Protein backbone atom coordinates (compact mmCIF):
# COMPACT_ATOMS: atom_id res chain seq x y z
CA UNK A 1 0.00 0.00 0.00
CA UNK A 2 1.15 3.50 -0.80
CA UNK A 3 0.24 6.31 1.55
CA UNK A 4 0.80 9.94 0.74
CA UNK A 5 0.34 12.06 3.85
CA UNK A 6 -0.15 15.78 3.30
CA UNK A 7 2.78 16.03 0.94
CA UNK A 8 4.11 19.27 -0.44
CA UNK A 9 7.02 19.40 -2.81
CA UNK A 10 9.05 22.32 -4.10
CA UNK A 11 11.63 21.94 -6.83
CA UNK A 12 15.12 23.45 -6.35
CA UNK A 13 14.14 26.31 -8.65
CA UNK A 14 11.47 27.30 -6.11
CA UNK A 15 8.53 26.00 -8.10
CA UNK A 16 5.99 24.46 -5.74
CA UNK A 17 4.70 21.44 -7.62
CA UNK A 18 2.63 19.78 -4.92
CA UNK A 19 0.55 21.40 -2.17
CA UNK A 20 -0.74 19.28 0.66
CA UNK A 21 -1.54 16.12 -1.30
CA UNK A 22 -2.98 13.14 0.54
CA UNK A 23 -3.75 9.82 -1.10
CA UNK A 24 -3.97 6.12 -0.34
CA UNK A 25 -3.44 3.43 -2.95
CA UNK A 26 -4.40 -0.06 -1.83
CA UNK A 27 -2.75 -3.24 -3.01
CA UNK A 28 -4.26 -4.53 -6.23
CA UNK A 29 -5.91 -1.23 -7.14
CA UNK A 30 -5.91 0.21 -10.62
CA UNK A 31 -5.53 3.95 -10.37
CA UNK A 32 -5.31 6.61 -13.07
CA UNK A 33 -3.77 9.92 -12.03
CA UNK A 34 -5.14 12.49 -14.41
CA UNK A 35 -4.72 16.16 -15.12
CA UNK A 36 -3.26 18.47 -17.66
CA UNK A 37 0.46 18.82 -18.30
CA UNK A 38 2.01 20.58 -15.35
CA UNK A 39 -0.65 19.54 -12.83
CA UNK A 40 1.89 17.64 -10.75
CA UNK A 41 1.03 14.07 -11.72
CA UNK A 42 4.54 12.91 -12.57
CA UNK A 43 5.96 14.82 -9.60
CA UNK A 44 3.56 12.91 -7.37
CA UNK A 45 4.34 9.45 -8.67
CA UNK A 46 8.09 10.09 -8.48
CA UNK A 47 7.57 10.12 -4.73
CA UNK A 48 6.34 6.53 -4.81
CA UNK A 49 9.76 5.08 -5.57
CA UNK A 50 11.74 7.70 -3.72
CA UNK A 51 13.08 9.59 -6.73
CA UNK A 52 11.69 12.67 -5.05
CA UNK A 53 11.39 13.15 -1.32
CA UNK A 54 8.67 15.42 0.05
CA UNK A 55 9.58 18.89 1.27
CA UNK A 56 6.72 18.59 3.71
CA UNK A 57 4.71 15.58 4.79
CA UNK A 58 5.63 11.97 4.19
CA UNK A 59 5.18 9.09 1.80
CA UNK A 60 4.97 5.57 3.18
CA UNK A 61 5.32 2.57 0.88
CA UNK A 62 4.43 -0.77 2.46
CA UNK A 63 5.13 0.63 5.88
CA UNK A 64 8.47 2.17 4.94
CA UNK A 65 8.96 5.92 4.95
CA UNK A 66 10.53 6.84 1.61
CA UNK A 67 13.07 9.15 3.23
CA UNK A 68 14.44 6.12 5.06
CA UNK A 69 15.04 3.94 2.03
CA UNK A 70 17.09 4.24 -1.14
CA UNK A 71 15.54 4.50 -4.58
CA UNK A 72 16.94 1.07 -5.38
CA UNK A 73 15.26 -0.52 -2.38
CA UNK A 74 11.94 1.13 -3.07
CA UNK A 75 12.16 0.33 -6.79
CA UNK A 76 12.30 -3.33 -5.93
CA UNK A 77 8.64 -3.01 -4.93
CA UNK A 78 7.59 -0.09 -7.11
CA UNK A 79 8.45 -0.40 -10.79
CA UNK A 80 8.42 2.83 -12.80
CA UNK A 81 8.08 2.74 -16.58
CA UNK A 82 9.17 6.12 -17.91
CA UNK A 83 7.40 7.87 -20.74
CA UNK A 84 10.30 7.77 -23.18
CA UNK A 85 12.00 4.37 -23.47
CA UNK A 86 15.01 6.06 -25.06
CA UNK A 87 15.84 7.52 -21.68
CA UNK A 88 16.83 4.09 -20.43
CA UNK A 89 17.87 1.86 -23.32
CA UNK A 90 21.62 1.43 -23.51
CA UNK A 91 22.49 -2.24 -23.80
CA UNK A 92 23.78 -4.17 -26.77
CA UNK A 93 20.94 -6.63 -26.83
CA UNK A 94 17.35 -6.72 -25.68
CA UNK A 95 18.08 -9.55 -23.27
CA UNK A 96 20.87 -7.55 -21.63
CA UNK A 97 18.49 -4.64 -21.31
CA UNK A 98 15.96 -6.77 -19.50
CA UNK A 99 18.64 -8.32 -17.32
CA UNK A 100 20.08 -4.95 -16.26
CA UNK A 101 17.74 -4.28 -13.36
CA UNK A 102 17.85 -7.92 -12.30
CA UNK A 103 21.62 -7.71 -12.00
CA UNK A 104 21.36 -4.46 -10.04
CA UNK A 105 18.93 -6.04 -7.63
CA UNK A 106 21.26 -8.95 -7.04
CA UNK A 107 19.29 -11.78 -8.59
CA UNK A 108 21.17 -15.04 -9.19
CA UNK A 109 22.34 -15.97 -12.72
CA UNK A 110 19.78 -18.80 -13.08
CA UNK A 111 16.91 -16.62 -11.94
CA UNK A 112 17.99 -13.86 -14.27
CA UNK A 113 17.93 -16.21 -17.26
CA UNK A 114 14.48 -17.48 -16.38
CA UNK A 115 13.05 -14.05 -15.73
CA UNK A 116 14.46 -12.64 -18.97
CA UNK A 117 12.87 -15.42 -21.00
CA UNK A 118 9.60 -14.94 -19.16
CA UNK A 119 9.55 -11.20 -19.77
CA UNK A 120 10.45 -11.63 -23.43
CA UNK A 121 7.57 -14.03 -23.94
CA UNK A 122 5.15 -11.89 -21.98
CA UNK A 123 5.68 -8.95 -24.27
CA UNK A 124 6.09 -10.87 -27.49
CA UNK A 125 9.75 -9.95 -27.86
CA UNK A 126 11.26 -13.42 -28.12
CA UNK A 127 12.46 -12.93 -31.67
CA UNK A 128 14.35 -9.79 -30.62
CA UNK A 129 16.30 -11.49 -27.86
CA UNK A 130 19.68 -10.86 -29.44
CA UNK A 131 18.71 -7.69 -31.33
CA UNK A 132 20.06 -4.29 -30.42
CA UNK A 133 17.27 -2.25 -28.83
CA UNK A 134 18.28 0.71 -30.99
CA UNK A 135 17.29 -1.21 -34.11
CA UNK A 136 13.69 -1.62 -32.98
CA UNK A 137 10.72 0.58 -33.83
CA UNK A 138 9.28 3.06 -31.32
CA UNK A 139 6.49 0.74 -30.22
CA UNK A 140 8.87 -2.18 -29.83
CA UNK A 141 11.25 -0.09 -27.73
CA UNK A 142 8.36 0.77 -25.45
CA UNK A 143 7.68 -2.92 -24.99
CA UNK A 144 11.33 -3.56 -24.15
CA UNK A 145 11.22 -0.84 -21.51
CA UNK A 146 8.05 -2.35 -20.06
CA UNK A 147 9.55 -5.86 -20.13
CA UNK A 148 12.65 -4.67 -18.34
CA UNK A 149 10.52 -3.38 -15.47
CA UNK A 150 8.18 -6.37 -15.25
CA UNK A 151 11.16 -8.71 -15.20
CA UNK A 152 11.83 -8.08 -11.55
CA UNK A 153 8.17 -8.55 -10.72
CA UNK A 154 7.44 -5.45 -8.68
CA UNK A 155 4.22 -5.28 -6.69
CA UNK A 156 3.35 -1.88 -8.04
CA UNK A 157 3.76 -0.78 -11.63
CA UNK A 158 3.68 2.89 -12.53
CA UNK A 159 3.23 3.81 -16.19
CA UNK A 160 3.98 7.43 -17.04
CA UNK A 161 1.93 8.59 -20.05
CA UNK A 162 1.96 5.17 -21.72
CA UNK A 163 -0.39 6.16 -24.56
CA UNK A 164 1.57 9.03 -26.09
CA UNK A 165 2.19 8.53 -29.79
CA UNK A 166 0.50 5.13 -29.78
CA UNK A 167 -2.01 4.07 -32.41
CA UNK A 168 -5.31 2.40 -31.55
CA UNK A 169 -4.02 -1.16 -31.83
CA UNK A 170 -1.13 -0.43 -29.50
CA UNK A 171 -3.49 1.21 -27.01
CA UNK A 172 -5.85 -1.76 -27.12
CA UNK A 173 -2.95 -4.09 -26.51
CA UNK A 174 -1.79 -1.95 -23.60
CA UNK A 175 -5.26 -1.99 -22.12
CA UNK A 176 -5.46 -5.76 -22.31
CA UNK A 177 -2.05 -5.99 -20.78
CA UNK A 178 -2.98 -3.78 -17.85
CA UNK A 179 -6.02 -5.96 -17.22
CA UNK A 180 -3.72 -8.96 -17.17
CA UNK A 181 -1.53 -7.31 -14.56
CA UNK A 182 -4.54 -6.50 -12.41
CA UNK A 183 -5.79 -10.05 -12.51
CA UNK A 184 -2.33 -11.13 -11.36
CA UNK A 185 -2.85 -8.98 -8.30
CA UNK A 186 -0.51 -6.16 -9.20
CA UNK A 187 -1.17 -2.57 -8.28
CA UNK A 188 -1.17 -0.47 -11.44
CA UNK A 189 -0.87 3.31 -11.46
CA UNK A 190 -1.06 5.14 -14.76
CA UNK A 191 -0.32 8.80 -15.20
CA UNK A 192 -2.20 10.11 -18.17
CA UNK A 193 -4.29 12.81 -19.74
CA UNK A 194 -5.85 10.44 -22.26
CA UNK A 195 -9.52 10.46 -21.26
CA UNK A 196 -10.66 8.11 -24.01
CA UNK A 197 -8.16 5.47 -22.95
CA UNK A 198 -9.16 5.80 -19.32
CA UNK A 199 -12.85 5.68 -20.22
CA UNK A 200 -12.32 2.25 -21.75
CA UNK A 201 -10.22 0.96 -18.82
CA UNK A 202 -12.43 2.02 -15.95
CA UNK A 203 -9.87 2.59 -13.17
CA UNK A 204 -10.22 4.62 -10.02
CA UNK A 205 -9.38 8.19 -10.92
CA UNK A 206 -7.38 10.75 -9.00
CA UNK A 207 -7.88 14.12 -10.63
CA UNK A 208 -5.17 16.73 -10.16
CA UNK A 209 -4.77 20.39 -10.97
CA UNK A 210 -2.16 22.92 -9.92
CA UNK A 211 -0.40 20.53 -7.57
CA UNK A 212 -3.52 19.56 -5.65
CA UNK A 213 -5.91 16.65 -5.79
CA UNK A 214 -9.27 17.96 -6.99
CA UNK A 215 -11.21 14.74 -6.63
CA UNK A 216 -11.04 10.99 -6.36
CA UNK A 217 -13.64 8.57 -7.57
CA UNK A 218 -14.67 5.98 -10.09
CA UNK A 219 -14.17 6.67 -13.76
CA UNK A 220 -17.91 7.09 -14.20
CA UNK A 221 -18.17 9.67 -11.45
CA UNK A 222 -15.21 11.77 -12.45
CA UNK A 223 -15.26 11.60 -16.24
CA UNK A 224 -18.84 12.76 -16.42
CA UNK A 225 -18.47 15.69 -14.06
CA UNK A 226 -18.11 18.62 -16.42
CA UNK A 227 -17.41 21.09 -13.65
CA UNK A 228 -14.52 19.09 -12.23
CA UNK A 229 -13.01 18.34 -15.60
CA UNK A 230 -13.09 22.00 -16.62
CA UNK A 231 -11.22 22.88 -13.44
CA UNK A 232 -8.61 20.29 -14.34
CA UNK A 233 -8.52 21.51 -17.95
CA UNK A 234 -9.49 18.10 -19.25
CA UNK A 235 -11.97 17.28 -21.97
CA UNK A 236 -14.89 14.91 -21.36
CA UNK A 237 -14.76 11.63 -23.25
CA UNK A 238 -16.89 11.81 -26.39
CA UNK A 239 -19.49 9.38 -25.08
CA UNK A 240 -19.89 11.43 -21.90
CA UNK A 241 -20.28 14.55 -24.03
CA UNK A 242 -23.06 12.87 -25.97
CA UNK A 243 -24.93 11.85 -22.85
CA UNK A 244 -24.57 15.28 -21.31
CA UNK A 245 -26.41 16.49 -24.38
CA UNK A 246 -29.10 13.83 -23.95
CA UNK A 247 -29.65 14.48 -20.25
CA UNK A 248 -32.83 16.47 -20.83
CA UNK A 249 -34.41 13.40 -22.39
CA UNK A 250 -34.10 11.60 -19.11
CA UNK A 251 -31.08 9.50 -19.96
CA UNK A 252 -28.40 8.90 -17.31
CA UNK A 253 -25.30 11.03 -17.66
CA UNK A 254 -22.73 8.70 -16.13
CA UNK A 255 -22.00 6.79 -19.32
CA UNK A 256 -18.43 6.85 -20.56
CA UNK A 257 -17.84 4.01 -22.99
CA UNK A 258 -19.42 2.75 -26.17
CA UNK A 259 -20.44 -0.61 -24.81
CA UNK A 260 -22.42 0.87 -21.98
CA UNK A 261 -23.83 3.61 -24.22
CA UNK A 262 -25.32 1.05 -26.55
CA UNK A 263 -26.93 -0.83 -23.70
CA UNK A 264 -28.39 2.30 -22.13
CA UNK A 265 -29.76 3.59 -25.44
CA UNK A 266 -31.29 0.28 -26.46
CA UNK A 267 -32.90 -0.18 -23.06
CA UNK A 268 -34.25 3.36 -23.20
CA UNK A 269 -35.70 2.82 -26.65
CA UNK A 270 -37.37 -0.43 -25.61
CA UNK A 271 -38.92 1.15 -22.57
CA UNK A 272 -40.22 4.08 -24.54
CA UNK A 273 -41.60 2.28 -27.58
Amino acid at each position, binding site marked *: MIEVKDVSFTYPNDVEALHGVSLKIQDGEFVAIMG*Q*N*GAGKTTLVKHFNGLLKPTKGEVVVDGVNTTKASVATLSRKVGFVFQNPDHQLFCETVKDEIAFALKNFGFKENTIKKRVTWALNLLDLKKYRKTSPFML*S*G*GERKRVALASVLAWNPKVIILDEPT*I*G*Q*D*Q*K*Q*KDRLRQFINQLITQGKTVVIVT*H*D*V*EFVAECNPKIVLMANGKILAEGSAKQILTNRYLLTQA*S*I*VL*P*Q*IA*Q*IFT*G*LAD*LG*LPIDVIN*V*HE*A*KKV*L*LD*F*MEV*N*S
Partner: protein
Amino acid sequence: MAVIETKGLTYTYPSGTKRALEDVSITIERGEFVVLTGPSGCGKTTLCRCFNGLVPHFYGGKLEGDVLVTGLNVHEHSIYELARHVGLVFQNPENQLFALSVEKDVAFGLENLGVPRDEMKKRVDWALQTTDIEDLRERAPHELSGGQQQRVAIASVLAMQPNVMVLDEPTSFLDPLGAQRIFEVINELNKNLGITVVLVEHRLDLAARYADHVIIMDEGRVMLDGKPREIFGLEKTRLMGIGIPKSTRLYQVLEKSGVHLSKVPITSEEATQILKEVLNRD
Protein backbone atom coordinates in the same frame (compact mmCIF):
# COMPACT_ATOMS: atom_id res chain seq x y z
CA MET B 1 -6.71 23.01 -58.69
CA ALA B 2 -4.52 20.33 -57.24
CA VAL B 3 -1.92 21.70 -54.87
CA ILE B 4 -0.36 18.30 -54.19
CA GLU B 5 -0.44 15.43 -56.61
CA THR B 6 1.35 12.12 -56.43
CA LYS B 7 1.29 9.37 -59.06
CA GLY B 8 2.63 5.94 -58.34
CA LEU B 9 4.87 7.25 -55.58
CA THR B 10 7.15 4.48 -54.37
CA TYR B 11 10.01 4.95 -51.96
CA THR B 12 12.58 2.90 -50.10
CA TYR B 13 14.89 4.36 -47.46
CA PRO B 14 18.62 3.84 -48.13
CA SER B 15 18.94 1.30 -45.33
CA GLY B 16 15.44 -0.05 -45.79
CA THR B 17 14.67 -3.61 -46.72
CA LYS B 18 11.06 -3.06 -47.61
CA ARG B 19 9.25 -0.24 -49.33
CA ALA B 20 8.18 2.60 -47.07
CA LEU B 21 5.74 3.86 -49.70
CA GLU B 22 4.08 1.69 -52.33
CA ASP B 23 2.33 3.13 -55.37
CA VAL B 24 0.80 6.12 -53.59
CA SER B 25 -1.43 8.18 -55.83
CA ILE B 26 -3.32 11.00 -54.18
CA THR B 27 -4.65 14.43 -55.11
CA ILE B 28 -5.03 17.25 -52.64
CA GLU B 29 -6.97 20.30 -53.77
CA ARG B 30 -6.18 23.87 -52.82
CA GLY B 31 -7.73 24.90 -49.51
CA GLU B 32 -8.51 21.39 -48.32
CA PHE B 33 -8.03 20.26 -44.74
CA VAL B 34 -6.69 16.76 -45.11
CA VAL B 35 -6.35 14.31 -42.24
CA LEU B 36 -3.83 11.59 -42.96
CA THR B 37 -3.85 8.65 -40.60
CA GLY B 38 -3.00 4.98 -40.26
CA PRO B 39 -1.36 2.52 -37.88
CA SER B 40 2.21 3.12 -36.72
CA GLY B 41 4.68 2.44 -39.49
CA CYS B 42 2.14 2.85 -42.29
CA GLY B 43 4.23 5.43 -44.12
CA LYS B 44 2.36 8.61 -43.27
CA THR B 45 5.44 10.26 -41.81
CA THR B 46 7.46 9.31 -44.89
CA LEU B 47 4.75 10.68 -47.16
CA CYS B 48 4.81 14.02 -45.36
CA ARG B 49 8.49 14.26 -45.95
CA CYS B 50 7.97 13.73 -49.66
CA PHE B 51 5.89 16.88 -49.80
CA ASN B 52 8.72 19.23 -48.88
CA GLY B 53 11.58 17.32 -50.38
CA LEU B 54 13.19 15.88 -47.25
CA VAL B 55 12.52 12.69 -49.13
CA PRO B 56 14.53 12.21 -51.27
CA HIS B 57 16.98 15.10 -50.86
CA PHE B 58 17.74 14.80 -47.14
CA TYR B 59 17.21 11.08 -46.64
CA GLY B 60 18.52 9.77 -49.95
CA GLY B 61 17.05 6.46 -51.00
CA LYS B 62 15.10 5.61 -54.11
CA LEU B 63 12.06 7.72 -54.99
CA GLU B 64 9.97 6.64 -57.95
CA GLY B 65 6.83 8.14 -59.38
CA ASP B 66 5.76 11.76 -59.58
CA VAL B 67 5.34 14.15 -56.72
CA LEU B 68 4.09 17.59 -57.70
CA VAL B 69 3.73 20.21 -55.02
CA THR B 70 2.24 23.56 -56.08
CA GLY B 71 3.23 22.54 -59.58
CA LEU B 72 6.86 21.89 -58.69
CA ASN B 73 8.34 18.46 -59.24
CA VAL B 74 9.97 17.40 -55.97
CA HIS B 75 12.66 15.43 -57.81
CA GLU B 76 13.86 18.61 -59.49
CA HIS B 77 13.72 21.17 -56.72
CA SER B 78 15.82 21.49 -53.60
CA ILE B 79 14.37 21.51 -50.11
CA TYR B 80 14.98 25.22 -49.69
CA GLU B 81 13.11 26.01 -52.88
CA LEU B 82 10.17 23.89 -51.81
CA ALA B 83 10.28 25.50 -48.35
CA ARG B 84 8.77 28.65 -49.82
CA HIS B 85 5.64 26.74 -50.72
CA VAL B 86 5.34 23.94 -48.19
CA GLY B 87 5.90 24.24 -44.48
CA LEU B 88 6.45 21.22 -42.26
CA VAL B 89 5.70 21.20 -38.53
CA PHE B 90 7.11 18.24 -36.62
CA GLN B 91 6.00 16.14 -33.71
CA ASN B 92 8.43 17.24 -31.03
CA PRO B 93 8.05 20.94 -30.31
CA GLU B 94 11.40 21.19 -28.56
CA ASN B 95 13.45 20.02 -31.53
CA GLN B 96 12.25 22.55 -34.04
CA LEU B 97 13.04 25.69 -32.07
CA PHE B 98 16.62 26.85 -32.35
CA ALA B 99 16.85 30.44 -31.25
CA LEU B 100 16.95 32.00 -27.82
CA SER B 101 13.82 34.06 -28.29
CA VAL B 102 10.48 33.36 -29.91
CA GLU B 103 10.66 36.21 -32.39
CA LYS B 104 14.15 35.19 -33.57
CA ASP B 105 12.82 31.66 -34.10
CA VAL B 106 9.88 32.89 -36.12
CA ALA B 107 12.30 34.94 -38.22
CA PHE B 108 14.65 32.01 -38.80
CA GLY B 109 13.16 30.83 -42.09
CA LEU B 110 12.95 34.39 -43.38
CA GLU B 111 16.58 35.03 -42.49
CA ASN B 112 17.55 31.91 -44.39
CA LEU B 113 15.65 33.15 -47.40
CA GLY B 114 17.40 36.52 -47.24
CA VAL B 115 14.21 38.50 -46.75
CA PRO B 116 15.02 42.21 -46.09
CA ARG B 117 14.72 43.29 -42.48
CA ASP B 118 11.66 45.54 -42.84
CA GLU B 119 9.65 42.89 -44.64
CA MET B 120 10.87 40.34 -42.11
CA LYS B 121 9.69 42.40 -39.15
CA LYS B 122 6.25 42.76 -40.70
CA ARG B 123 5.93 39.07 -41.38
CA VAL B 124 7.13 38.11 -37.91
CA ASP B 125 4.59 40.44 -36.31
CA TRP B 126 1.85 39.07 -38.53
CA ALA B 127 2.75 35.44 -37.78
CA LEU B 128 2.84 36.09 -34.03
CA GLN B 129 -0.55 37.81 -34.14
CA THR B 130 -2.17 35.16 -36.27
CA THR B 131 -1.11 32.36 -33.92
CA ASP B 132 -1.96 34.52 -30.90
CA ILE B 133 1.47 34.43 -29.28
CA GLU B 134 2.40 38.12 -29.42
CA ASP B 135 2.87 38.17 -25.66
CA LEU B 136 5.51 35.42 -25.94
CA ARG B 137 7.68 37.40 -28.33
CA GLU B 138 10.71 37.83 -26.08
CA ARG B 139 10.50 34.56 -24.22
CA ALA B 140 13.04 31.78 -24.51
CA PRO B 141 11.71 28.52 -25.97
CA HIS B 142 12.73 26.49 -22.96
CA GLU B 143 10.41 28.48 -20.71
CA LEU B 144 7.35 27.70 -22.78
CA SER B 145 4.84 24.91 -22.41
CA GLY B 146 4.60 22.27 -25.15
CA GLY B 147 1.48 23.88 -26.57
CA GLN B 148 3.10 27.29 -26.70
CA GLN B 149 6.19 25.82 -28.34
CA GLN B 150 4.09 24.21 -31.06
CA ARG B 151 2.38 27.52 -31.73
CA VAL B 152 5.82 29.08 -32.12
CA ALA B 153 6.74 26.31 -34.56
CA ILE B 154 3.54 26.97 -36.52
CA ALA B 155 4.24 30.72 -36.50
CA SER B 156 7.78 30.11 -37.77
CA VAL B 157 6.44 28.14 -40.68
CA LEU B 158 3.58 30.58 -41.24
CA ALA B 159 5.99 33.51 -41.51
CA MET B 160 7.34 31.95 -44.68
CA GLN B 161 3.83 32.23 -46.14
CA PRO B 162 3.54 28.76 -47.61
CA ASN B 163 0.55 27.57 -49.63
CA VAL B 164 0.57 24.25 -47.84
CA MET B 165 1.21 23.39 -44.24
CA VAL B 166 1.98 19.79 -43.34
CA LEU B 167 1.86 18.85 -39.67
CA ASP B 168 3.20 15.49 -38.54
CA GLU B 169 1.43 14.49 -35.32
CA PRO B 170 1.91 17.97 -33.85
CA THR B 171 -0.08 17.24 -30.70
CA SER B 172 1.56 13.99 -29.58
CA PHE B 173 3.18 15.57 -26.56
CA LEU B 174 0.27 17.84 -25.67
CA ASP B 175 -2.66 17.27 -23.35
CA PRO B 176 -6.19 17.24 -24.90
CA LEU B 177 -6.84 20.92 -24.24
CA GLY B 178 -3.47 21.91 -25.69
CA ALA B 179 -4.18 19.68 -28.67
CA GLN B 180 -7.58 21.28 -29.21
CA ARG B 181 -6.02 24.74 -29.22
CA ILE B 182 -3.50 23.71 -31.83
CA PHE B 183 -6.21 22.24 -34.05
CA GLU B 184 -8.17 25.45 -33.72
CA VAL B 185 -5.16 27.51 -34.80
CA ILE B 186 -4.56 25.23 -37.76
CA ASN B 187 -8.23 25.34 -38.68
CA GLU B 188 -8.20 29.12 -38.68
CA LEU B 189 -5.18 29.16 -40.96
CA ASN B 190 -7.06 26.86 -43.29
CA LYS B 191 -10.42 28.63 -43.24
CA ASN B 192 -9.27 32.26 -42.96
CA LEU B 193 -6.06 32.24 -44.94
CA GLY B 194 -6.83 29.46 -47.40
CA ILE B 195 -3.72 27.49 -46.51
CA THR B 196 -4.02 23.86 -47.53
CA VAL B 197 -3.49 21.68 -44.46
CA VAL B 198 -2.26 18.12 -44.31
CA LEU B 199 -2.53 16.89 -40.73
CA VAL B 200 -1.15 13.53 -39.67
CA GLU B 201 -2.95 12.44 -36.53
CA HIS B 202 -3.95 9.50 -34.39
CA ARG B 203 -6.24 11.54 -32.16
CA LEU B 204 -9.25 11.47 -34.43
CA ASP B 205 -11.62 12.19 -31.55
CA LEU B 206 -10.26 15.71 -31.55
CA ALA B 207 -9.11 16.17 -35.15
CA ALA B 208 -11.75 14.49 -37.32
CA ARG B 209 -14.19 17.36 -37.06
CA TYR B 210 -11.94 19.67 -39.09
CA ALA B 211 -11.28 17.38 -42.02
CA ASP B 212 -12.89 17.64 -45.41
CA HIS B 213 -10.68 14.95 -46.91
CA VAL B 214 -9.37 11.82 -45.20
CA ILE B 215 -6.57 9.54 -46.39
CA ILE B 216 -5.88 6.26 -44.63
CA MET B 217 -2.65 4.38 -45.11
CA ASP B 218 -1.37 1.00 -44.10
CA GLU B 219 1.86 -0.80 -44.96
CA GLY B 220 3.00 2.02 -47.23
CA ARG B 221 -0.16 2.01 -49.34
CA VAL B 222 -3.19 4.26 -49.51
CA MET B 223 -6.09 2.12 -48.38
CA LEU B 224 -8.91 4.62 -48.25
CA ASP B 225 -9.23 8.10 -49.67
CA GLY B 226 -12.35 10.22 -49.50
CA LYS B 227 -14.79 12.14 -47.37
CA PRO B 228 -14.56 11.80 -43.56
CA ARG B 229 -18.04 10.55 -42.97
CA GLU B 230 -17.77 7.81 -45.56
CA ILE B 231 -14.41 6.61 -44.42
CA PHE B 232 -14.80 6.69 -40.66
CA GLY B 233 -18.15 4.93 -40.90
CA LEU B 234 -16.68 1.94 -42.68
CA GLU B 235 -16.14 -1.22 -40.68
CA LYS B 236 -12.94 -1.73 -42.66
CA THR B 237 -11.43 1.44 -41.20
CA ARG B 238 -11.95 0.34 -37.65
CA LEU B 239 -10.66 -3.15 -38.34
CA MET B 240 -7.47 -1.71 -39.75
CA GLY B 241 -6.77 -0.48 -36.27
CA ILE B 242 -7.72 3.14 -36.81
CA GLY B 243 -9.05 4.85 -33.68
CA ILE B 244 -12.24 6.24 -35.19
CA PRO B 245 -14.13 8.84 -33.13
CA LYS B 246 -16.22 7.24 -30.40
CA SER B 247 -19.33 8.93 -31.79
CA THR B 248 -18.79 7.07 -35.04
CA ARG B 249 -18.21 3.82 -33.18
CA LEU B 250 -21.46 4.26 -31.31
CA TYR B 251 -23.21 4.79 -34.64
CA GLN B 252 -21.76 1.53 -36.00
CA VAL B 253 -22.71 -0.41 -32.91
CA LEU B 254 -26.28 0.90 -32.99
CA GLU B 255 -26.60 0.20 -36.72
CA LYS B 256 -25.65 -3.40 -36.03
CA SER B 257 -28.38 -3.59 -33.41
CA GLY B 258 -30.91 -2.34 -35.90
CA VAL B 259 -31.08 1.30 -34.93
CA HIS B 260 -30.78 3.50 -37.99
CA LEU B 261 -29.40 6.98 -37.65
CA SER B 262 -29.77 9.70 -40.26
CA LYS B 263 -26.06 10.24 -40.89
CA VAL B 264 -22.62 9.17 -39.75
CA PRO B 265 -21.55 11.37 -36.84
CA ILE B 266 -17.93 12.24 -36.25
CA THR B 267 -18.35 14.67 -33.36
CA SER B 268 -20.26 14.34 -30.12
CA GLU B 269 -22.49 17.28 -31.07
CA GLU B 270 -23.56 15.53 -34.26
CA ALA B 271 -24.14 12.29 -32.39
CA THR B 272 -26.24 14.04 -29.75
CA GLN B 273 -28.31 15.69 -32.43
CA ILE B 274 -29.07 12.59 -34.45
CA LEU B 275 -29.70 10.48 -31.36
CA LYS B 276 -32.22 13.04 -30.20
CA GLU B 277 -34.00 12.67 -33.53
CA VAL B 278 -34.21 8.92 -33.10
CA LEU B 279 -35.18 9.00 -29.44
CA ASN B 280 -37.82 11.66 -29.92
CA ARG B 281 -39.25 9.69 -32.76
CA ASP B 282 -40.22 6.89 -30.37
